[in-house]
């Protein structure tokens, strides 16, 4: 029962991942690509949590925490760079 639920959620999340990837490849400005990068990272956090639920291993969630930290740090650094070039 839990398995089919995870499959459904993972399919929807995969479609969202592909849409964000399209925006990352095709974004006209740099800001579009940065927001697509942020969105891809957040969708990946959900994917990692679903993989942890599917595998039944709680240690995967630590990696998701590192991801949340890295997403924030990366977006701040890039925004600061395009704003005033360090």
């Amino acid at each position, binding site marked *: 029962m839990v398995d089919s639920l995870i499959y459904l959620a993972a399919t929807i999340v995969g479609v969202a991942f592909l849409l964000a990837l399209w925006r990352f490849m095709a974004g006209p400005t740099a800001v579009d*690509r940065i927001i697509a990068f942020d969105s891809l990272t957040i969708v990946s956090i959900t994917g990692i949590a679903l*993989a942890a639920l599917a*595998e039944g291993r709680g240690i995967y969630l630590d990696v998701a925490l590192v991801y949340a930290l890295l997403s924030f740090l*990366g977006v701040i650094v*890039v925004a600061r*760079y395009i704003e005033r*070039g*360090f």
Partner: protein
Amino acid sequence: MILLIAMSLLLSLTIVAAAILAIRGGQSLAISILAAGLVSLLASVQFLLLAAPDVAMTEAAIGSGLTTFLFFFVLGRVRGGEHD
């Protein structure tokens, strides 16, 4: 099992796409660095799906965090020589 294989295939596709963007570049060097960071980030998800969480954590922290930060720092310093 099917779920992990499907996620792994999707991630491989994404890694190739981001690597192409990192090589060919968008408008600027910053996009290339961002795409290289994305390659590293998704490679660490791939490591995670191969059941190696410690390798994935190291790859995410160093390959994506530290390298991207260092590249942007250096790019900000040497900006006068950039032909764009």
